[in-house]
C-alpha cells in the first residue's frame, strides 16, 4: 500500500517545475492540474501525448517540461508508452543504461482520446499490464477542435455539435469504471481545484507499478463558456455538488476521497457555465434540471459510505 506524505496545502511542493508561457487558454483547468501533477512526478518523466489541446504545450523549439516528450497521434498514445517502456526495459536488462537513466512513462491525453479513439489502445495496455501512468484531463469535449461533444460530455451540455434546446442527449461515459473493470493498479478522479487531494493521488500513483490512471476534471473557459477567473470556483463546485466525485480504485476497492456533505444542489454548478444556459433561460427547464440532479443523487445513494 502506497504511503502519502502530503496532508495539507503547506506540504505541497512549490518548485514550479513546469515552465510558463504555454499557449493554453487563461483559466485552463487541464493546465492547472498538469502543473500540480508535474511538481510531484518530477522531470524524470517522458510524456507521451495524443492529439488535443495539450499537444500545443511543446511547440518547436519550446517545451514547458524539464523532462521528455513524445507526441504520437490521437488514438495511440498508450502504444507509444508501450514502445518506450519496453525499450527502456530492454536497455536496462542489457545493461546498456543504468537505473539512473530510467524514466516514468506518462500518457497525457484529453477525454476524447481517452474515452473514444484511444480506448482500444488503453484497454490493451492495461491487459498487458503496462507500467505507466495515464493522465486524462477531462474538459468534457473535443476541445482542440472547438468543443464538439465527446463520450465524456455530460448530459444536457451545449457543445458545438449539440446546440439544440436540450443540449447533449447522451450521458457521460464512466471511464473510471471502465478502467477499474480491467483491475489495474490504480484509478483516481481528481481536480486541480482540490490540490491536496490531487497531490496525494499523484503521490500514490507514482509509487505503484502497472497501469494507473488519474482523470482530472478540467474546467475549460471557452468550451464551457465561463470567465477564466471563475475556473477554480467552478472546480470546487463540481466537487461540492457531487457531480464530480473524487475517488480512487486501489487494491480492488473503490474509495471516495472526499464526500461532499452537505451536497449543494447541482444547479449551483450548472448555472456558472454558459453551456448550461438553456437550462435556465429563457425559462427553467425543470425536467432536465431534475433529471441531472436525480442522476447525481442516484450516484451518491449507491455509494456505501
Amino acid at each position, binding site marked *: 500500500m502506497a504511503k502519502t506524505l502530503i496532508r495539507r496545502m503547506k506540504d505541497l511542493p512549490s518548485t514550479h517545475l513546469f515552465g510558463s508561457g504555454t499557449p493554453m487558454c487563461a483559466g485552463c483547468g487541464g493546465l492547472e492540474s498538469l502543473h500540480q501533477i508535474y511538481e510531484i512526478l518530477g522531470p524524470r518523466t517522458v510524456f507521451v501525448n495524443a492529439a488535443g489541446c495539450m*499537444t500545443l504545450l*511543446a511547440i518547436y523549439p519550446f517545451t514547458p517540461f524539464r523532462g521528455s*516528450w*513524445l507526441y504520437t497521434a490521437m488514438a*495511440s498514445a498508450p502504444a507509444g508508452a508501450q514502445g*518506450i517502456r519496453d*525499450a*527502456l526495459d530492454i536497455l536496462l536488462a542489457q545493461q546498456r543504461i543504468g537505473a*539512473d537513466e530510467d524514466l516514468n512513462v506518462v500518457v497525457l491525453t484529453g477525454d476524447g482520446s481517452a474515452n473514444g479513439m484511444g480506448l*482500444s489502445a488503453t484497454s490493451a495496455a492495461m491487459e498487458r499490464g503496462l507500467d505507466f501512468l495515464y493522465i486524462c484531463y477531462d474538459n468534457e469535449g473535443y476541445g482542440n477542435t472547438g468543443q464538439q461533444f465527446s463520450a465524456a460530455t455530460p448530459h444536457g451540455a451545449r457543445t458545438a455539435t449539440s446546440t439544440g434546446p436540450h443540449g447533449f442527449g447522451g450521458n457521460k461515459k464512466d471511464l473510471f469504471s471502465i478502467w477499474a473493470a480491467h483491475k489495474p493498479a490504480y484509478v483516481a478522479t481528481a481536480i486541480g481545484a482540490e490540490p491536496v487531494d490531487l497531490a496525494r493521488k499523484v503521490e500514490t500513483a507514482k509509487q505503484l507499478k502497472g497501469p494507473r490512471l488519474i482523470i482530472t476534471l478540467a474546467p475549460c473557459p471557452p468550451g464551457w463558456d465561463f470567465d477564466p477567473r471563475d475556473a477554480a470556483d467552478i472546480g470546487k463546485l463540481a466537487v461540492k455538488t457531487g457531480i464530480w466525485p473524487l475517488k480512487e480504485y486501489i487494491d480492488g476497492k473503490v474509495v471516495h476521497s472526499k464526500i461532499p456533505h452537505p451536497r449543494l444542489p447541482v444547479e449551483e454548478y450548472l448555472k456558472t457555465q454558459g453551456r448550461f444556459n438553456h437550462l435556465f433561460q429563457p425559462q427553467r427547464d425543470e425536467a432536465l434540471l431534475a433529471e441531472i440532479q436525480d442522476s447525481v443523487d442516484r450516484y451518491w445513494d449507491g455509494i456505501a459510505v
Partner: protein
Amino acid sequence: MQPKLLTGNAAAAWGARLARVDYVPAFPITPQTEIIETLGRWIEGGQMPGRMVTLESEHSMITAAGAAAATGVRVFTATSSQGLLYGMEMIYTVAGWRAPFVLINVSRGLASPITLEPDHNDVLAARDSGFLQIHCATCQEVLDSVIMAYRIAEDPRVRLPIIVNLDGFYLSFTREPVEIPEPKSVADFLPAYDPESTRFRASSPNSQAVAVLGGAPYSYFRYESHLASLNALDVHAEVAGAFAQQFGRHYEAVEAYRCEDAEIVFLMIGSFATKAKAAVDRLRDAGEPVGLVRPRLLRPLPAKELAQILAGKQAVAVIDQNISVGMGGMLHAELASALYGKANAPPILTSFIGGLGGRDISPEEFYEIAAITRKAAQSGVIPPARLLYTQEEYREVQKLQAIAHAERHEMGAE
C-alpha cells in the same frame, strides 16, 4: 555454405534474427503471420534474444515500433495489406520521427473486394510517407535486404524507417534455397545500433515529434526528410558494395537484366520479375532484343539509374501490379516522370496492369506485351493502358455472375 530451403517469410525472420533486433511489436495478418510466429518461437525458445509484444492493432504496433526506435533500440515489425493501411496514420507519423527501424510488408491486395492474394497497392500506399522501400524478388534477397536495410536506415545521413517488401504467397510461402549468413559476419557488417541523440534518457531530456506552427518549420522538416531519403541512394550503393564484399552477393538499386543491347525493356518490381526474366530469355532465344529492369529501391526512386539504364531504348513496357483508380499504373507514372526530358529517353512507354489480387502473368502474356510494345515503337503510336485479362477469365467471372443471379432469383429477389 549449404543453402537451406526457406520460405520468404522464414527468410525475413532470419534477417531479423541475424540483425540482432531488440524489439518486435507484432500483430497477425495473412500472409505475414508466419514471420512473427517464427520470431516468437525463437524468442520463447531462447534461440534469439529480444522481446516480442503483440499489440491490439497495427496502428498501435507501428506507434510502439516508432516509440521504441525513438528510445534507442533496434526494432523489427511486419504487416500486410489491411494492416499497413490500418496503421497508415502512424506510417507517416513515425517516418517524421526520424527513428530508423525495419518493417516487412508482405504484399496483399486491398479491400474491396477483400482478398488474401497479392498485389502492390498496399505497399505503394506508403510510397509518399517517408519510409524507404526495398522490393524483393527472391527469398535470398529478402534475408539479405533486411540486414542491409538496418545499415541503410540507421546511417546518420538517412535516419528513416524502411519497408522491405515481399509478395504474398509467391514469395511468402514459396521455398527457395537461401544461404543463411554466419552471425559473426553479419555482426561485422552490421554493428550495434547507435541512436546518438534519438533516445529518451533521464540525464538528457528530449522532446521528439513536437508540433510546429506555420509553414516554414513544417516545410523545413518535411523537406529535410526528403533530402535524407535521397541520401539513401548513395548509402544504398555503399552498403550494397560492403555487403557484396562480405557475402559475395551484389544488389543494385536497379537490377538490369540483359539490358545492354536491348531495344525493348520490361519494367516491373517484386517476385513476378522472375517470370519476366524467364520470358526475356525465351524472347532472346527467338532473337528478340528484350531486357528487364527491376527497381529494387523504390524510395528513394533511383531516377538517375533508371534514366541511364533506359537511355537509347526504343520502348519500355511497364507492368504494374497495382492500380491507381482513375489514373492507371503507378510505376508507369513514376517512370514517365523519371524519364521526361532526359537525353535519349525512350520515346515509348506502354502500360500494362497485371497480377492484381494474385492473378498470375503467363509467359505468353509477356511475349504479347513485347510484341505490342515493339509495334508501338515502330509506329510511334502508344496504345492505351491495358489490363492483362483473358477471355477465359472473363467467361469465368460471367459464370459466377450467372450463379449469383440465379441464387438471387431462388431467394425470391427480383
